[in-house]
């Protein structure tokens, strides 16, 4: 299919995945493909990316879709039955036989069936050992053909085929085998540093090989099912749409990266609110510059903006089981926020409450901070099931007096109170003293105030309750603070 025809489906899929592709950007992409030939694959990919993806967090989603729409196509990628080699496979076979012949000193011959899985694994090991890229690619193709068990029209996902292929190659043990072989082969004893570097190199080659296999599987699935259907199967949320409550480890990692800019923005927003309506000192240069329109009379004095004062923040977060994944995110958020505000105090609770500011201040290692919060903070009072009422009461008793008219209070949690007493008067008192009180709830709005959720009762006293299931919503909250 000509490139221009592929483009409309490709861009539609980017939009389906949530990428904000504007009309201008769409047009730019159409121009781009006219000047960079598709054969120049890497450059072509980056050129498309340069016009369509303006946020690096979206790059992975873009890459996947790119691969589906612009993957190498042709009859050689059709899924054929085992033992029915087409031309492509015959060629590959010859290549393999050659390599095999050189390596083992055996005569060539026999069909593809003559290669046992053990032999393929041995060849793979040799290729990984020497970093032979061409051989690794050839073996990836061969392995998928032999081991994935792909059949046309079969409705299983790529991960199943990947799993089958990798298992047959015994790839889990490959790293150790490579390390051992390397140790045996080297003439002198390797230093620990050398071993370490070799290991990293092997790991990177194995990773590369895995990606080859994944691409190969994907190409075949695309050939079988068509790009559109395949893209749909592979569709993953953008980092900003990942639900905090259900985020995987990997996804958490990418969320973490997005947090720093967001907290900067939050700091800027909270600071800006304060400078409204105030005027700073006279801006002399600016006044004179404008005076020239009045023949040199400073008729229109200009003022500098005052330096915004740094806002103070108190974060009070539920870290109970019902919001476990959210809590992990919350703690990362608190950690990132610490850099942006001169005064941040953080508190975590389950049925008891504890201040955890010092854990975040005393270390530069976020993992360590979160670990200390989880192990050292005193948040269990009776049974370790959420009791907002009691936690709030204790908060008020111990820290209530520290809230001033400069303080913004952020309450984070699902307000699932296990039918305990609400003690919502605490929130009311907070709101009286504080500059603002906001509640961020990680649950979908439709669940609020159902079962033991009493977010409405608390929320009535705040400046607003906001659904905060993902980064996009958190950003929206920050954005709307002006």
């Amino acid at each position, binding site marked *: 299919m000509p490139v221009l025809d592929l483009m409309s489906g490709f861009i539609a899929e980017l939009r389906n995945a949530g990428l904000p592709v504007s009309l201008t950007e769409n047009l730019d992409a159409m121009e781009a493909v006219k000047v960079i030939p598709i054969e*120049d694959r890497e450059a072509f990919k980056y050129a498309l990316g340069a016009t369509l993806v303006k946020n690096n967090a979206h790059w992975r989603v873009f890459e996947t879709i790119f691969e589906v729409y612009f993957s190498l196509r042709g009859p050689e990628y059709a899924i054929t039955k085992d033992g029915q080699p087409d031309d492509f496979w015959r060629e590959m076979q010859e290549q393999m036989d050659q390599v095999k012949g050189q390596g083992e000193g055996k005569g060539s011959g026999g069909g593809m069936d003559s290669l046992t899985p053990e032999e393929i694994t041995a060849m793979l090991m040799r290729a990984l050992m020497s970093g032979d890229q061409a051989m690794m690619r050839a073996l990836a193709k061969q392995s998928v053909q032999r081991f994935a068990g792909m059949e046309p029209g079969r409705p299983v996902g790529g991960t199943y085929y990947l799993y089958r292929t990798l298992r047959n190659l015994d790839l889990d043990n490959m790293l150790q085998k490579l390390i051992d072989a390397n140790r045996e082969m080297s003439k002198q004893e390797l230093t620990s540093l050398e071993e370490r570097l070799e290991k990293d190199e092997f790991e990177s080659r194995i990773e590369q090989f895995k990606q080859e296999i994944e691409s190969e599987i994907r190409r075949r699935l695309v050939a079988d099912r068509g790009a559109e259907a395949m893209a749909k199967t592979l569709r993953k949320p953008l980092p900003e749409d990942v639900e905090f409550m259900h985020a995987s480890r990997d996804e958490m990692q990418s969320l973490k990266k997005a947090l720093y800019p967001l907290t900067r923005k939050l700091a800027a927003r909270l600071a800006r609110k304060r400078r409204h309506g105030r005027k700073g000192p006279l801006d002399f240069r600016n006044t004179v510059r404008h005076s020239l329109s009045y023949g040199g009379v400073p008729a229109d004095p200009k003022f500098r903006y005052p330096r915004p004062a740094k806002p103070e923040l108190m974060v009070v977060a539920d870290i109970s089981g019902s919001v476990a994944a959210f809590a992990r995110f919350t703690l990362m958020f608190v950690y990132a926020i610490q850099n942006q505000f001169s005064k941040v105090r953080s508190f975590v609770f389950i049925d008891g409450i504890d201040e955890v500011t010092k854990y975040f201040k005393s270390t530069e290692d976020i993992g360590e901070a979160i670990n200390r919060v989880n192990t050292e903070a005193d948040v269990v009072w009776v049974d370790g099931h959420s009791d907002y009422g009691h936690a709030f009461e204790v908060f008020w008793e111990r820290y209530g007096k520290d809230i001033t008219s400069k303080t913004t209070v952020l309450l984070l949690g699902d307000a699932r109170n296990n039918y305990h007493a609400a003690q919502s008067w605490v929130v009311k008192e907070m709101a009286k003293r504080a500059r603002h009180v906001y509640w961020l709830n990680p649950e979908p709005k439709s669940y609020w105030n159902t079962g033991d959720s009493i977010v409405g009762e608390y929320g009535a006293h705040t400046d607003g309750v906001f659904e905060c299931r993902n980064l996009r919503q958190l950003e929206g909250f920050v954005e709307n603070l002006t």
Partner: protein
Amino acid sequence: MKPRFNDVATVRSGLKNVNYLADDGIAGVVYLADRLGKPVLIEGPAGTGKTQLAKSVAELTGARLIRLQCYEGLDESKALYEWNYKKQLLRIQADKNSDSWSEVHDDIFSKEFLLTRPLLEAITSEDPVVLLIDEVDRVELETEALLLEILSEYQVSIPELGTITAKQIPLVFLTSNNTRELSEALKRRCLYLHVDYPDLEREKEIVLNKVPDISENLADQIARIVRSIRQLDLKKPPSVSETLDWARTLMLLGIETIDADEAKETLHILLKYQTDIAKAAKELSVTK
């Protein structure tokens, strides 16, 4: 206007000739910027060659580099143009009695009284230029608006004087360390390039190119160690500039092959935080 480059490969090899090691992505976007006449917004971690790319493209194309260094508080009078008000005041004073005000007004708002700042200079230049707007994320969101006209139309409107349009479309690079989100309006006008840490091969090439007399073997080892260190969960992973600093230090110390102790003793050149240094030191001496 005649394109500056024939194809992506020319960009890549040309950059290599001026000692900048690009990958296909970087070269592809530079090529595209020339063909489409669009500015390039470069983002990425500190010290990965964002600023250097603009400089090297200038060198490669034989253009003059005009640089606008951004900072908090940068305004129109520093970025675009400013009226030379001292000179204007003198002119007003000198002619107090003779000319009518409207004449004086027209006169003092002519090019003679205009102080050109980098952006205006870039579009009024007769000779070829590369415009570098460095660290654009440092200016306030509101100030970004100053850039929009020049980035999309290559022109500057001066209320008292009219619109000044570029004689030629310069190559424009903006860099950002992503300390804040740039406006959608700005991003829409630019091609986007994310420059990340280079892969092993490219980093080794950079070291070989930038550090005189270094051996292939040492460059290779350096690139490997840096790669391993970057895989750790660090507060600030080593940048390319730090790799280069480290390579130069090892050369000064006359080291030909790095062992674990030497690596550990010089880690502070590669890493800036004590916690990171400790983590890396531990990691390098243990085989797992």
